């Protein structure tokens, strides 16, 4: 048995990232001095999560128009598909206030001569965000939250249909953490690494999304029986070739158009793309255009920085240093000068994100951020059906969640639950399973290279999972195409891994235990993705998921696809949930 650490919190926050840190701050404002706020973070809170390399823009800001106009933009940007307009609207209403808060915390904002924030396109503003994460974390320190770094959360504690805490292990100390929360916020980000990345071997983590967010939020919600949404609405990114750095700095920032090998600006040429808005067409349509151009042998595809605003190209390297410094090194090593030549782009491996240009996550009640599991709240990438919240929206969502949590806590006078020893023992066995197995199985013999004769490593499992997802669930090398037959194979293979093979997964040490849990969680997310994609028998997000057997949108599916996992049968039951239009207007057009 591992040494145990018991922690009690009024407000328990799992994942000290973009959302979690600001949620802690807001919980203090709403709940007063006596509230005990705890954050558990698997890394080191000052440098963890999506923001760890820095960022150069906040992609959600109401520069002009109204919050309703922002909703209209978000809706348009995913081809008019259903979104939770109520949620987006609630974020849009206070995002500007949040940005002001972060400016006062020390974030350097770029400003125009008139003192207003420097906008990038319609809805973004530029920042010098290389220390965005330490600045974000400073709000959690200011709130006096109790912070536990290097604790990896493995499971929520569910009693009588409510979430009463979570357990995890100390990545450094190997202790078993049992944390009770009167209310719990789960915000451990989205999921990378389900599909095979473009770069192999020593560059396999040179991907766009943060590779250490491995779907634990989705997997834990699913295992807790929460209703999940939109796992068919993955994000398929177009990014800079090889480094997979963000491209908005060039496309929106300097107006660099996509061009093909012939130098043609195809977004402005093909009537279909033009009908969607040309260069600024919805994100999936731009992805689709990239795919079609390449498949028509007009690749490689570039962002033509030589045609963009010449005044902006000089600042380009600086902007990338604030966010994705490796591309500046890459340009230097490969003699690439963005002012003299276009920058090649590529389609990357798909991700599950709730806060970016994808919308997978937990389903929530009204604008409370409470999931269908009582006392369990989500925010950031973990929150589903409300895309395009990004950094500033994830901060804001954390604030909104925190206020609802404190309110529910007071109104319902929630108390700490008794957690029986039996339950603790079961959760501990599960948490340390792969580590214990290694000890047992190493007694059964080692091969001459030191590997287990009767065990499998997290790396082997990851490779197998990524191969299945790549080849049968619409990976990059399959141009994101799927059909029911492919999905059937994916279902069969991923089920076999989950049901039969996990018993062989072994971890030599605590670092490998963390990586083993990353695989366990990702496999759970794979199951959600496969079932959701299979259920949505249409193509609503061309470019993201291309169903060859149902290539057109079907009005029957103008709704959300939600699901609940049945622990007993291991089945994911999918069902339709109607879409409610809150902001009037043509869903396929932006209002401004």
């Amino acid at each position: 048995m591992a040494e145990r650490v018991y922690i009690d919190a009024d407000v328990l926050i799992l994942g000290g990232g973009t959302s979690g840190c600001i949620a802690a701050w807001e919980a203090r404002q709403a709940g007063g001095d006596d509230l005990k706020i705890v954050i558990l973070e698997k890394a080191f809170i000052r440098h963890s999560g999506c923001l760890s390399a820095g960022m150069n823009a906040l992609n959600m800001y109401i520069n002009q128009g109204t919050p309703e106009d922002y909703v209209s933009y978000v809706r348009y940007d995913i081809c008019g598909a259903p979104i939770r307009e109520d949620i987006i609207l609630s974020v849009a209403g206070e995002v500007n206030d949040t940005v002001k808060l972060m400016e006062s915390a020390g974030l350097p904002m770029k400003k125009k001569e008139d003192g207003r924030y420097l906008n990038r396109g319609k809805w973004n503003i530029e920042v010098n965000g290389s220390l965005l994460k330490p600045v974000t974390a400073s709000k959690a320190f200011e709130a006096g939250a109790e912070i536990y770094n290097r604790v990896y959360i493995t499971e929520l504690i569910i009693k009588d249909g409510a979430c009463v805490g979570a357990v995890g292990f100390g990545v450094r100390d190997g202790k078993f953490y049992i944390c009770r929360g009167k209310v719990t916020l789960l915000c451990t980000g989205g999921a990378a690494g389900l599909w095979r990345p473009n770069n192999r071997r020593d560059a396999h983590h040179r991907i766009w999304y943060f590779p250490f967010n491995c779907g634990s939020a989705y997997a834990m919600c699913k295992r807790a029986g929460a209703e999940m949404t939109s796992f068919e609405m993955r994000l398929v990114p177009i990014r800079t070739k090889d480094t997979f750095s963000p491209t908005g700095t060039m496309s929106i920032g300097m107006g660099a158009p996509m061009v093909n090998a012939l130098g043609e600006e195809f977004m402005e040429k093909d009537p279909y793309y033009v009908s969607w808005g040309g260069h600024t067409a919805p994100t999936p349509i731009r992805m689709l255009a990239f795919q079609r151009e390449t498949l028509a042998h007009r690749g490689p595809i570039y962002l033509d920085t030589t045609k963009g605003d010449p005044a902006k190209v000089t600042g380009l390297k600086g902007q990338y240093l604030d966010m994705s410094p490796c591309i500046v090194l890459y340009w230097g090593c490969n003699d690439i000068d963005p002012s003299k030549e276009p920058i090649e782009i590529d389609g990357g491996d798909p991700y599950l994100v709730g806060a970016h240009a994808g919308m997978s996550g937990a389903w929530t009640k009204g604008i409370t951020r409470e999931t269908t599991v009582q006392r369990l709240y989500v925010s950031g990438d973990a929150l589903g059906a409300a895309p395009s919240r990004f950094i500033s929206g994830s901060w804001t969502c954390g604030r909104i969640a925190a206020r609802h949590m404190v309110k529910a806590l007071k109104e319902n006078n929630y108390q700490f639950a008794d957690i029986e020893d039996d339950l603790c023992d079961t959760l501990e066995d599960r948490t340390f399973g792969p580590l214990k197995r290694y000890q047992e199985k190493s007694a059964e013999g080692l091969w001459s290279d030191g590997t287990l004769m009767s065990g499998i490593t997290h790396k082997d499992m990851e490779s197998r999972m990524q191969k299945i997802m790549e080849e049968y669930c619409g990976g990059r090398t399959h141009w994101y195409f799927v059909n029911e037959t492919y999905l059937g194979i994916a279902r069969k293979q991923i089920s076999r891994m989950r049901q039969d093979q996990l018993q062989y997964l072994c971890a030599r040490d605590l670092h490998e235990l963390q990586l083993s849990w990353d695989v366990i969680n990702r496999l759970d997310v794979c199951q959600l993705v496969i079932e959701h994609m299979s259920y949505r028998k249409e193509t609503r997000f061309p470019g993201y998921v291309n169903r060859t057997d149902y290539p057109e949108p079907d009005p029957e599916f103008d709704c959300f696809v939600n699901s609940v996992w049945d622990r007993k049968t291991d089945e994911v039951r999918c069902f339709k949930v109607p879409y409610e239009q809150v902001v009037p207007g043509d869903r396929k057009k932006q209002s401004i």
Partner: protein
Amino acid sequence: MPPKVDPTKCDGCQGESEPLCEQVCPGNLMTLHKETMKAIIRDKSDCWDCMTCTKACPRQAIQTVLQYQLAYFPGKLIPLVGTNSVTWTSIDCHGRVERFVMKTLVSGDDEDED
């Protein structure tokens, strides 16, 4: 793009409760080699290349080196972290040098910046 540690500069962060590069890595990748007591990356293929460790090292012992499959030798990018800014020096494969000073914080309050 994994960090490479110069053993002549790395002192294992003696005096710190935990080496700074190990403390900050979001992927839990940096650690001290048990015998040499110099920092190493546990698995270079797992690095996201966020450069957090490179910026955190007080002795500038870490250099981010791109995987050779992606980039030619021997370009360099070196960050020097100040209180309210980072000064980046980019040296391409032909020795051409560019410098960039990027603002990081508005006030100097964040004294324990690592």
